[in-house]
């Protein structure tokens, strides 16, 4: 029995994981959602902004990580548009532009927001650090036109926005190390307030910045997204995701515990 457990075919585990994902997707569960303290901080910061303020969302994720980050983007954008806060979309990653465009259009349609007045998508420029530093001096020098090719000086909401001084917060939704770039250059050099929404892989690296106040708030994976959705009372993909993920995590924890027990019992018997 122990030997069988130790040599369990990985395909059996795949089947268990598939079932753990399929069942709650077909029969949605309603597990309680807890809001992490760092997500609450981000919500509070945005919620305290007066209508007419501007935040910048950096969609620094690609197709391989949008499952975790898009629910965050959607929740934050809904909150901003409900509060009358204007949103500027930008990205440092070439494959994120179309994802950002699709999402912003979808949320704007739902909230009845107008492009150019309530939100705008600047798009992508190669360079990373140079783009961040350049926008600190003058956004129009880096993005002369928006993503659709319209000159920035013809866009109403950009009339009074020249650089980071007119932006209250930069939220970086990141699947790579772009948060460090935003903190290192936009926060240190231009004193722009930074918050982050990151994939689970990155969250451990983010806590030092949160603890020092270099990040005003943080969302991590489905947990962060579901927490933010709860705060704005708009359950979405984040809540559905965390319910399913909870079941898979239970399965993985169970498998790790069983595997360890089998390993130690076998070692004891060998002694």
């Amino acid at each position, binding site marked *: 029995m122990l030997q069988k457990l130790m040599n369990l075919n990985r395909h059996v585990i795949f089947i268990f994981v598939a079932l753990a994902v399929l069942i709650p997707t077909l029969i949605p569960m309603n597990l309680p959602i807890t809001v992490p303290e760092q997500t609450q901080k981000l919500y509070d910061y945005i919620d305290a902004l007066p209508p007419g303020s501007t935040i910048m969302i950096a969609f620094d994720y690609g197709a391989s990580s949008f499952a975790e980050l898009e629910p965050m983007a959607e929740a934050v954008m809904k909150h901003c548009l409900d509060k009358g806060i204007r949103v500027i979309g930008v990205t440092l990653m070439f494959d994120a*532009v179309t994802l950002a465009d699709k999402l912003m259009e979808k949320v704007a349609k739902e909230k009845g927001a107008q492009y150019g007045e309530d939100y705008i998508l600047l798009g992508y420029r190669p360079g990373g650090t140079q783009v961040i530093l350049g926008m600190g001096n003058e956004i129009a020098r880096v993005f002369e036109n928006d993503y659709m090719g319209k000159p920035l000086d013809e866009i109403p909401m950009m009339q009074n926005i020249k650089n980071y001084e007119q932006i209250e917060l930069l939220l970086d939704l990141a699947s790579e190390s772009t948060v460090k770039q935003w903190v*290192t250059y936009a926060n240190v050099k231009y004193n722009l307030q930074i918050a982050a929404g990151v994939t689970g892989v*990155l969250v451990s690296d983010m806590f030092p910045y949160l603890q*020092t106040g270099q990040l005003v708030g943080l969302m991590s994976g489905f947990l962060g997204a579901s927490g933010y959705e709860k705060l704005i009372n708009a359950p979405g993909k984040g809540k559905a995701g965390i319910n399913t993920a909870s079941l*898979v995590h239970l399965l993985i924890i169970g498998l790790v515990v069983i595997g360890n027990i089998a390993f130690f019992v076998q070692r004891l018997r060998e002694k």
Partner: protein
Amino acid sequence: MEPLGIWVAALLTLCIYSFLYRDNPFYRFAEHLFIGLSVGYSIVMAIHQGLIPLAWEPLWAAITGEVPSTGENPRWGFFNLIPICIGLLFFARLSPRHAWLIRYPLAILIGIGSGIEIPNVLQADIFAQIHGTITPFGKIETLSAMELFGAILMIIGVICTLTYFFFSVEHRGAIAGMSKIGIAFLMIGFGSAFGNTVLGRVALLIQRVDFLLNDWLGTLF
């Protein structure tokens, strides 16, 4: 057009997941298609979002005398020739006789990069972190028992983990003990990172299953 896109995405998703059984031609087809498309897309984006607006358009405006939307003198666009020419030196690598020319753009890149990075990284990753580690002890009387415990734990973690990487003294006695505590902190950090990585991978699977069941099969039934 959208149903066709959904079908293509669904079939490619199934091709990729077929690898869970074993390597097969469907998986390889999807993998090669993905790599090819990614490279092609990145080249097109670099040209349209970088080369054309940042290099070509200012230069063309300088040649034609067309005033840009920023209102500045179009002739300033000729200054773009300097970085363009320096950038073109990267292609000198293709000729063995002229390969030495690549040193100039590299030297500029490293020089500017270091100049920008060093002060900002020192501030963001060293000074601010040290400040954040020490600050709680400056307001110790206002801390709750839990916050005080956290602050002390953090100091122990920082000192012990740094001791583990300090090789100028032999790791014996108290130093060895601190070093072992440092390893424990590192292991907890790695464990946390691994757990979060699993969460991330599960999230991808959940999103794909949701797409297959609702967006794809939902269009059929």
